[in-house]
């Protein structure tokens, strides 16, 4: 009996050792060998509705060039963790990482991602590429994104807000697609019939400022404004335009919404639209293909899009939320080169059209215009019309912190915990403090 026990113990130990050997051995990587082919690259990206389109375009690249590309999909919630880890390691495990307009600048500024003209001095964007208020460039001297800055990334997912509306319902009721905030409220009022139908929902959580910015900028207001002459920043969140914008925002979020409006983020807004219980929402372009999938959506074929409204027709300011691709700085040169080769390939006009047809959110104006000719891509026209009005988000290194502060404050005002005026006053103080602590000169 004792021998039995002992042998159980020994087996356990052996198993452990065996397992360690197995675990180690089974995952040995075979390095890709190839004659003139470029080194295999791996891309860190987040899972999203447009990832499928990206996979398809990468397949095309692999077939066309023979180069290998590995796509590492990742939950969005863990994306920043993984990017921070890989960019601060001795050598990055990924050759390309996806960034987000909001927190790209800290990586440009700290040179954690490579300057693309350092890899290839001839690299430049041609005219067709949309530059999104220079979101991919960083001027170290000015401390902001500017045309004079160096290029640190390539726009790949050109997410931008558009207004989605139910073409069938609006037509039936005799409404034109809304052009102004007043139109929005008129239509919302007409359709509001809870719990079967709501009028409008807004983004109240998970970056609520994204919803507010479109209103604020359309009214001519701003979060932060940079005066290039005396190189000072101005915080605009407590100005009259901001108060008016918050008013509109709160109405939009609360008045014609389901009772759980405090819990509404992008996913909830899109779901409600998909279930046919709201006649319009404004959110990112990436949501568009989702409305057409009959397995997911009850309103397939019934949705159309237009430019996000403004105070008056022709005064719009849809917010961009682009995701640029960058190349880690902690990589050997040949891998950087291979990564850049891929990025240049994706930006080509024909490739962009192809990418758009797969359901990608492209970043060339000419590609959007080509796509707009095909009614299958009903959102393309709205995006092409929006580009001239598009308004970038924050243009400093501390975007993440500022939006975190705004998120807290906006959520508390939506929940009714603070007064609107008080909210904006506190936002101004906090943003001011954050900016000064980061070394910016603030008025």
């Amino acid at each position: 009996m004792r021998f039995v026990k002992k042998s159980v113990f020994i087996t356990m130990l052996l198993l452990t050792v065996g397992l360690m050997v197995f675990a180690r051995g089974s995952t040995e990587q075979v390095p890709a060998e190839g004659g003139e082919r470029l080194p295999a690259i791996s891309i860190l990206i987040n899972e999203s509705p447009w990832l499928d389109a990206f996979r398809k375009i990468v397949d095309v690249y692999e077939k066309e060039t023979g180069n290998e590309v590995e796509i590492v999909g990742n939950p969005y919630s863990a994306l920043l963790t993984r990017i921070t880890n890989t960019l601060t390691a001795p050598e990055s495990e990924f050759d390309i990482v996806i960034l987000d307009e909001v927190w790209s600048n800290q990586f440009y500024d700290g040179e954690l991602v490579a300057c693309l003209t350092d890899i290839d001095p001839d690299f430049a964007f041609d005219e067709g590429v949309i530059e999104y208020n220079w979101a991919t460039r960083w001027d170290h001297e000015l401390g902001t994104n500017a045309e004079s800055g160096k290029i640190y990334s390539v726009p790949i997912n050109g997410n931008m807000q558009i207004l989605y509306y139910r073409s069938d319902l609006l037509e039936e009721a005799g409404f034109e697609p809304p052009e102004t905030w007043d139109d929005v409220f008129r239509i919302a009022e007409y359709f509001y019939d809870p719990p079967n139908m709501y009028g409008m929902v807004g983004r109240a959580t998970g970056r609520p400022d994204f919803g507010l910015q479109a209103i604020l900028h359309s009214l001519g207001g701003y979060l932060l404004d940079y005066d290039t002459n005396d190189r000072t920043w101005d915080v605009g969140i407590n100005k009259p335009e901001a108060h008016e914008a918050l008013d509109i925002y709160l109405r939009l979020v609360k008045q014609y919404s389901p009772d759980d409006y405090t819990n509404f983020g992008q996913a909830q807004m899109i779901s409600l639209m998909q279930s046919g219980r709201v006649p319009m929402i404004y959110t990112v372009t990436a949501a568009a293909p989702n409305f057409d999938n009959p397995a997911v959506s009850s309103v397939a074929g019934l949705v159309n899009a237009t430019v996000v409204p403004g105070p008056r027709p022709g005064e719009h300011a849809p917010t961009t939320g682009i995701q640029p691709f960058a190349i880690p700085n902690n990589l050997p040169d040949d891998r950087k080169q291979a990564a850049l080769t891929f990025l240049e390939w994706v930006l080509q006009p024909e490739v962009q059209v192809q990418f758009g047809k797969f359901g990608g959110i492209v970043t060339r104006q000419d590609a959007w215009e080509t796509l707009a000719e095909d009614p299958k891509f009903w959102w393309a026209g709205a995006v092409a019309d929006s580009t001239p009005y598009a308004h970038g988000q924050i243009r400093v290194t501390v975007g993440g912190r500022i939006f975190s502060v705004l998120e807290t404050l906006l959520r508390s005002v939506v929940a009714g915990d603070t007064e609107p005026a008080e909210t904006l006053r506190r936002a101004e103080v906090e943003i001011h403090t954050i900016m000064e602590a980061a070394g910016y000169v603030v008025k």
Partner: protein
Amino acid sequence: MSQRNLYRIIDDNFKYIAIAPVIIVLVLLVLMPVGRLFATSFTEVKFVSGGLLFNPVGFINYLTAFKDAIAARALLNTTLLALISVSVEVVIAVVLALSVGYIKRGNTFFRTIFIFPMLLPPIAIGVMWLMIYDFNYGVLNSVLAFFGVRGPAWLANNMLAFPSIIIVDIWHWTSFVFLIVLAGVETLPHELSESGRIDGATELQIIRKIQLPILRPIIMTAIVTRTIFAFKVYEQIYLLTDGGPGNRTEVISSYIMRVYFNENRMGYASALSVLTLIFIAALVLFFYQLQKRVFNERGGKA
């Protein structure tokens, strides 16, 4: 013989040899991260020319933490969540574990079911309860609507969000306490209870006077571990309410993550981690003291 000697040496020093592996593992793998945590908490971390720059700032991060209203709220929420859900869980779990011990038929069935919730990944539990609670398409409100009642916004209502989260936590973690207490119940010496019965004690008296005192150390382990776990809840809440409405369900671990990565303030996040650590340690110590007071004994030590 040397082999004999070795055998003897192991025999003589078994006490140390047996504890050595755990000490080695922990020293190798814990000291570095913890040291780094403390060191980082006194710095401001910046991205500079392709690397991390640790800028010493003294106690500033700690001072900031004491003025941070969101951190305070998150810590308060987490503490409330821990205290309420852990006490409810312990009561339910102990009653369930003792009850299961009393029945013969179907006892494997009940045990398996009561352990089940723990087996599901937290993200899945988040989705599960979202499917129940959601105002627009949750099962709960659909059933209520069937009876002509218009259900509330369970996760978005200022009054209901926090209790709703607590219910999820209780549903999830009672299984853990149940499992631990059950293992204790199974090792209860039957002779003592039997002799109690022969002496004419009622079942309730046997439970109170004989079984619970024996189970106390293991229940204490469950309470302490659960309390510690409660300070790590994150995934479910992220999915269910994302801390809202306002900051009514904001918890400390998600706030630390937000500060660490989204706000890119590694130094401050480290200081918050240290303070949270001290806070939980104090709470656990308080539990042990309370236990000693209440039972007027030396704690759970041998």
